[in-house]
């Protein structure tokens, strides 16, 4: 185990599915050739097949301590980086004969992408339901990717527990992708290596919170050390136990925790609201977040009731986050205050 463990808490009741975290991540790390199709963090609408398509059925992780076999997602299951016929439409002289369209690298028209099922949901009107799930590397305490790597290229940093891929040791064999039950590792076909969320370690090292945390306009994401008993992350995960790991039964001990979604009551056949229950089936939530989800939702509701009746609630106070800095854990440095001139490493090209 690492000496300390960083963890994320994402409140699905504040998440808007806006992809600000997605784009903050993308513009930081995956703009180079070979990484265009990589979305180290993506927000998907659930229920849904997610990204890659059907990842929950692809195996990986552990059962009773033994690794579960996993399979490699196909390229079309990931979805590819699309380009568009801008030149043809804007200055091709073809007028309305052409219109802007996405193309896969092979020229085909896309039929899947990282967020293909946005806002589709499940159920039947008027009781449709859906919610948003930001999905990044879980920086597991027992990372199956690390176990699966034949080259010892994956390791866990002692100071913060981030799971990182040594891109010099990695030979792109992709056994880690198979082993990851969350399918949060990508293959870079140009560099022929595997790549994934790096926990924004260059930011963290400078005391700046990860981009997905600091750039979340919904103020839905917290970061911090799990052992910091004064921190919001500890309180939400350990003390109040309203933040739960995703698919905990897969045994990797993930460190991204989710405050599960409340939802409006369903409307019965007679048109009356079924008060006291949410419209997202509990079975579905238990499958995602384990049996603790019942208690977590009950705690949330009970504390909301307290707030409604004018009592103070530590839990509500934490989830409100009166100050932006409360979300950032110990990483409250303002990036504009840093001097980060280019060319500090002449050995790098």
């Amino acid at each position, binding site marked *: *185990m690492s000496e300390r463990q960083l963890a994320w808490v994402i409140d699905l*009741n*504040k998440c808007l599915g*806006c*992809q*600000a975290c*997605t*784009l*903050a991540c*993308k*513009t930081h790390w995956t703009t180079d050739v070979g990484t265009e199709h990589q979305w180290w963090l993506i927000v998907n609408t659930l229920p849904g097949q997610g990204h890659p398509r059907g990842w929950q059925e692809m195996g990986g992780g552990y059962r009773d301590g033994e690794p579960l076999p996993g399979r490699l997602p196909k390229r079309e299951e990931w979805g590819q980086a*699309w380009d*568009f016929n*801008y030149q043809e439409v*804007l200055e091709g002289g*073809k*007028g*309305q004969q052409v*219109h802007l369209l*996405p193309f896969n690298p092979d020229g085909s028209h*896309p039929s899947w*992408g*990282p967020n*293909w099922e946005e806002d589709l*949901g499940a159920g039947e009107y*008027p009781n*449709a*339901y859906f*919610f*948003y799930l930001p999905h990044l590397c879980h920086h597991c*305490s027992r990372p199956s990717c690390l176990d699966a790597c034949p080259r*010892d290229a994956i*390791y*866990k*940093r*002692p100071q913060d527990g981030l799971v*990182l891929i*040594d891109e*010099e040791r990695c030979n792109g064999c992709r056994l880690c992708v198979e082993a990851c039950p969350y399918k949060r590792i990508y293959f870079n076909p140009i560099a022929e290596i595997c790549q994934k969320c790096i926990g924004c*370690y260059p930011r963290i*090292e400078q005391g700046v919170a990860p*981009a997905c945390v*600091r*750039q979340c*306009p919904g103020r*839905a994401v917290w970061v911090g050390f799990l052992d910091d008993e004064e921190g919001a992350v500890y309180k939400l995960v350990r003390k109040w136990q309203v933040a739960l790991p995703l698919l905990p039964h897969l045994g990797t001990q993930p460190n991204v925790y989710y405050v599960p979604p*409340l939802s409006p009551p369903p409307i019965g056949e007679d*048109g009356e609201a079924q008060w006291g229950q949410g419209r997202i089936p509990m079975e579905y939530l238990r499958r995602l977040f384990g049996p603790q989800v019942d208690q977590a939702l009950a705690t949330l509701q009970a504390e*909301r009731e307290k707030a409604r009746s*004018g009592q103070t609630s530590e839990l*509500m106070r934490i989830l409100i*986050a*009166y100050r932006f800095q409360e979300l950032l854990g110990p990483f409250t440095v303002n990036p*504009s205050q840093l001097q*980060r*001139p*280019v060319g*500090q490493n002449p*050995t*790098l090209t």
Partner: protein
Amino acid sequence: MVQVRGAMGLWAERYREKWRWDRVVWGSHAVDCYPGGCPWYVFVRDGRVVREEQAGTLPQIEAGVPDMNPMGCQKGACWSHLLYAPERVTRPLKRAGERGEGKWEEISWDQALTEIADHILDAMTEQGPESVIWLGTPEIGAIPARAAATYLGHVTTDGNAEFQDMSPGYYLTWGVFNPVASMDDWFHARLILIWHANPVYTNIHWYHFIAEARYNGGEVITIAPDYSPSAIHADYHIPVRIGTDAALALAMCKVIIDEGLYDRRFVQEQTDLPLLVRRDNGRFLRQADMADGGREDQFYWWDAKAQIPVPAPLTTLALGDVEPALEGTYRVRLKDGTEVEVEPVFQRLCRRLEDYQPEKAAQICEVRPELIRMVARKVATRPTKIFSGWNPGKHYHGDLMERSMALLLALTGNWGKKGTGTRSWAVGGSTAWFLLPLLEKADPAEAREVYRRLIEALETVRSFDPTLTREMALIRVQQELGMADPRTPGRMVPPAFLWYYHFGYKERWNRREWHDPSMKRSFDEYFQEALEKGWWDSGWARVWQQVEPRVLIEAGGNVLRRQRGGQELLLKHAWPKLKCIVSIDYRINTTGLYADYILPAAQHYEKVGFSMPSIHHLTTVLADRAVPPLDQAKSDWEIAILLLEKVEERARQRGIKEVTNRAGQAISLEGLAERATLGGAIRDEDARMDLILRSDAAIGILSGDASLAKLRQVGHMRWRRLGLLGHGPSQAADIRPHETFSPFRWHVEDKLPYATLTRRAQFYIDHEWFLEAGEELPCHKEVPPMGGNYPFRLTSGHNRWSIHSMNQTNKIILNTHRGEPFAFINNRDAEAKGIKNGDYIRIYNDCGSMIIQAKVSPAVRPGQIIVYNGWEPYTHRRWYSESDLEPGMVKWLHLAGGYGHLRYRLLHWQPIPVDRAITVDVEKVSP
């Protein structure tokens, strides 16, 4: 055994190296997402913008209320990708094929400006200066470019009509359409009705206050036909039938009155509900009825104590010793000695509400009566906000919906205090920006002096009628003198009349079967009556009978995407009349594709500006120049000055000294740039911005040390007061330094009257047309079958991924959804039509048809089709988009004028085409 390793190899340095920069510059995106003006850091490396990140530096305003950080959304987070994008334009382009063909010739700036200047001069001399039209879009970068219109006597079309964000029902009620609380005030609400809005898509940067209000003990109820993305975080979703929101609101009003839950004092004091109405003619009892020479705007209460009619004071809302009756029928003697029966509006309202008893309303809006009662009781018992966007105003009967929603707030005392009210868009906070054309020299002291003279002018107006508040005097000046001086700040014309005569709307608006059946006469009869009575003369409505448009300039906007009624209508009717069409933009949009010239403008990171200063955050935010404009692009201020200089030069060469406009004013074509730049002092955009900021400081809007240099240090400055121009005065409240902002406090706390005919929140409109239509009081009317008799209703709303069409074609954003336009359809409807998720469907009606990808979802109400707007037409097949299905109907009552607050002034009361809930059908098409 988990392996732990501390040392990181050389590879790790590559990521550290990625996160480096040479400079950090304050930036913002200056678009109208209300509020725009998110403070960003823009990171520059090797002379290029590489990234941006929300600054997260806004202060907490009120103790115990969350701060506004990190304000900024996903669009802002990849704005830099637009700088170097394929749709970017960096050289002047001249059309080399047919309009819309996409064939271009690169030309020099000098050639482009010379040819455009000649077209402008041709138009001005042949048709008059009004024939050169600058479309009024809110893109703030366009405003310097439109300075050209100020000095050349051209017209600018009213922005609120162009982008159609008017709230007519709120305007009818309050005399302003745009009371806006600060974002953080939403935290104070105990009940938030998200109603006709989808803030999860459209207010990403401040939705958190709603989520946090919920954790603070508040409740959220979303009222929408579909289970919208803004319903998922609600405590309840009310699946209302499309277009029946007025019935729902009125049913709640009925419950609140029947159960005695209404705020009697608030109703008596703040509204017209106690005012007496004559039973013989349905008109308010006026002083002119009672006495010779009596005022037409003096109304009466029945004092329940003294049992006499007493004049409702013109100068205060305070009741004094009077107990205005809300019920009862009384007799009063008129000046001719006859007696008539009168009754308070409230009593008439109660009769009207008999039609909205919950069981009856449930038949209309398909919401269970018990639910209506439950929500009504909640509204009546806690601070409530209605999060309405600009969706109701885009409905044919949106005025009735908004009046009903305002009535709900009135009965429950829900405005003028923290955590209450509703919202619209409102900008303000820079008076100097508007005053610039009135200055003679670049000196903040002069700005202060001009401002002082403006206030003096208002006092002069008030000296003629001391009962006017300053707000009323200001409105009067805008209404009556608005067009007189070509330099009038923000001078605009309501474009409906231009559209009627020249854009092909006459025929559309006369499709009687697409109007409400209560329209008793033909649309044309109302239209002609309105013109003949001179109701729209302050908006130069009659000019278009004489003037043919010749030059159209779209600076920063995209009319062929935006216009309700569709590009076909414009291309068929307006385009042939236009000798020259210019797009000034940093990108090629659909309007640019159909233009004759595209002038390459600087993008937001390449010029100095401040973003749309909005009452939502009461902050002036710097959008600085992070990098110089790419290639040959120029800032829009520079483009404006270059154009003025070229017009001047060509006029001199052609021997044209001045032209005269239709108001008989001489427009001199000499010294144009000299005047616009105050003798050259503000030719430089830094100097211009510095003058604006220091002038705002001199006026007292910003703190005394405000300057460009200061703003470059701090990035943003909170306002000290709202100022007199922009939408500041509409708020009727002062900024308190350490509190959230709530509008209408002057009314509720200080008892200052409203700027309506009755000087109260007015629910009874006794204009003859409204009486004829049965809309003197709010009511529900069915959405007319605009588009023909088809089974589906097409609804829309702003999408999640762009601000209008800006950013919609950003490649990185396109990759986060389907990369092309789509329509949502209910799964059962889709099944019945044989449509599967991802199929292409044709949506059509009597106006047109479009082909689009289907997204099949149970979240959509059966019978509803949703196409979120903002798609560039050129992302659609044949470039036909949903606007080509929208008839663009105008409700005839919105031509009404000559009545109290029903007069034109910029951005306010005027006819505006609607687009929601039009009729369509769908069918599957082969791919």
